[in-house]
């Protein structure tokens, strides 16, 4: 009896506030827009058969016809992919350095990586506005060193979005890679070097392949949230950097076209299924390797 209650309470909560809302989004994506509040034709009251007859894929057809949407999907995929590679390039050397640091430093280094994660996401993105703007700190610094003679435009470009993503998601990249490197047996490197491997080739032939699980986990942990990112492109990107999270938000709040916004959401989720499944498979493989 108690066991049933223990299962039922969280189960019912998630059904009501996760699964049902999602079913509503799916239903909404098949409805028609109406000039009303709420702005769609409510189809549930008129009976199920009527409702299903009224369903059509016209919102999805609309998405393929208007190039704003597929351009936004493609540009989100591109931005998320490039940002993931950049985060890996910054994060891997840091995780590697942490794994080689003296034992007694490691908890402190770990804490330094985790601390920004607990700090408000919004504030960390906001901090970059003052740095990257035309009269911002970066331009002041570069002008002072004489490297440039006129201020650069970085804010409101794709470059600012990349910096924002790398900065905010860096801990997600470092932690799994560090965990993988930390588990590694140091004597393997010594063996490789004893057998005549140079340090660089020992890294490529031994260390990097052994940290691959961590690299894959880190990349997906950055790529998946970056794809639907809304705050970073809105604050740091300009009108030229299209990202689907921003399009969805604006479609919903500014254009008030709820059925189209729902269709945008359903397709975004379909795109995300692939990296999410890859992530699950990678985690399972890691767990089996540990056993």
């Amino acid at each position, binding site marked *: 009896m108690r066991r049933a209650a223990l299962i039922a309470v*969280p189960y019912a909560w998630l059904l009501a506030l996760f699964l049902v809302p999602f079913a509503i989004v799916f239903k909404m994506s098949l409805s028609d827009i109406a000039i009303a509040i709420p702005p769609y034709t409510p189809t549930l009251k008129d009976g199920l058969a009527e409702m299903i007859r009224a369903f059509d894929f016209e919102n999805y057809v609309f998405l393929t016809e208007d190039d704003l949407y597929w351009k936004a999907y493609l540009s989100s995929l591109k931005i998320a992919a490039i940002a993931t590679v950049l985060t890996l390039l910054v994060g891997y050397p*840091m995780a590697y*350095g942490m794994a*080689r640091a003296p034992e007694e430093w490691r908890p402190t280094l770990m804490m330094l990586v985790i601390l920004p994660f607990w700090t408000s996401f*919004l504030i960390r993105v906001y901090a970059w*506005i*003052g740095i990257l703007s035309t009269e911002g700190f970066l331009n002041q610094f570069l002008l002072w060193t004489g490297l440039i003679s006129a201020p650069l435009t970085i804010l409101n470009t794709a470059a600012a979005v990349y910096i924002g993503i790398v900065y905010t998601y860096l801990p997600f990249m470092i932690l799994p890679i560090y965990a993988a490197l930390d588990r590694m047996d140091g004597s393997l490197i010594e063996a490789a070097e004893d057998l005549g491997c140079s340090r660089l080739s020992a890294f490529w032939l031994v260390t990097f392949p052994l940290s691959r699980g961590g690299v894959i986990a880190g990349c997906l942990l950055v790529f998946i949230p970056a794809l*639907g990112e809304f705050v970073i492109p809105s604050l740091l990107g300009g009108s030229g950097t299209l990202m689907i*999270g921003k399009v969805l938000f604006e479609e919903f709040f500014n254009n008030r076209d709820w059925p189209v916004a729902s269709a945008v959401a359903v397709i975004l989720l379909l795109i995300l299924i692939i990296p999410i499944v890859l992530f699950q498979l990678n985690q399972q493989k890691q767990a089996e390797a540990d056993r």
Partner: protein
Amino acid sequence: MTRLSRFNVVSLTLGFAFLYIPMLILVIYSFNASKLVTVWAGFSTKWYGELLRNEQFLDAAWVTLRVAVISSTIATVLGTMAAYVLVRGGRFFGRTLFSGMIYAPLVMPEVITGLSLLLLFIGIGLDRGVLTIVLAHTTFSMCYVSVVVSSRLMSFDRSLEEAALDLGASPFDAFRLVTLPIIAPAVISGWLLAFTLSLDDLVIASFASGPSATTLPMKIWSSVRLGVSPEINALSSILIGLVTVGVISASLASKHASLRRQQETQAAARTT
């Protein structure tokens, strides 16, 4: 592997500089006397004063704090139950769906979670305000709590619970007297995580809230869209300060606890 090469030192230094300089600039310039945020005009704490007199910010902070405390507490209870069911519950009808619903919100884009909850609240005619933000935050943060707690549940020795049951404890007593004290650190960190996620959330709160309730991130958002302001710098510095103190004291406390446990184990080993 404790040979730091020059490459390691450089990459760690640059990496941590990249992580910390932006926040440092924010804190330093919150003490700037000038309204122009990027020009230094002398030390002043006036923006902190302005902030404390700004009723809108104080109201928003109060709403945020209430939402965070309530939602993280409910989320901790529900998340711990969910973790216990998943790890110890054995098979039951719809278990796959249940674990799917626990993991899916972790990877769901915030805009989709927010949109779907808003459509639900409108569909059932619930007035949007503090209550709906609490419901929304509880839903996604209980999943994080459940992941944290279930990893702890998986790693501890089940025979302790079985011993308690064999010695005549009811399942509830066994949970209360044996399981709960062992998983307590994970439950506490789950609560802290849920609390922080709730304090931090902008996107889901924007969807779930109505005109009657504005959270601090929503307030920050609407003023940040107009550009950098010294008041926001002051507010950010306060939040950064609180988080730093919190994280450092939590890690010192856990270090202290693990040292004490070590000493106790050694003492116990000596006496036997």
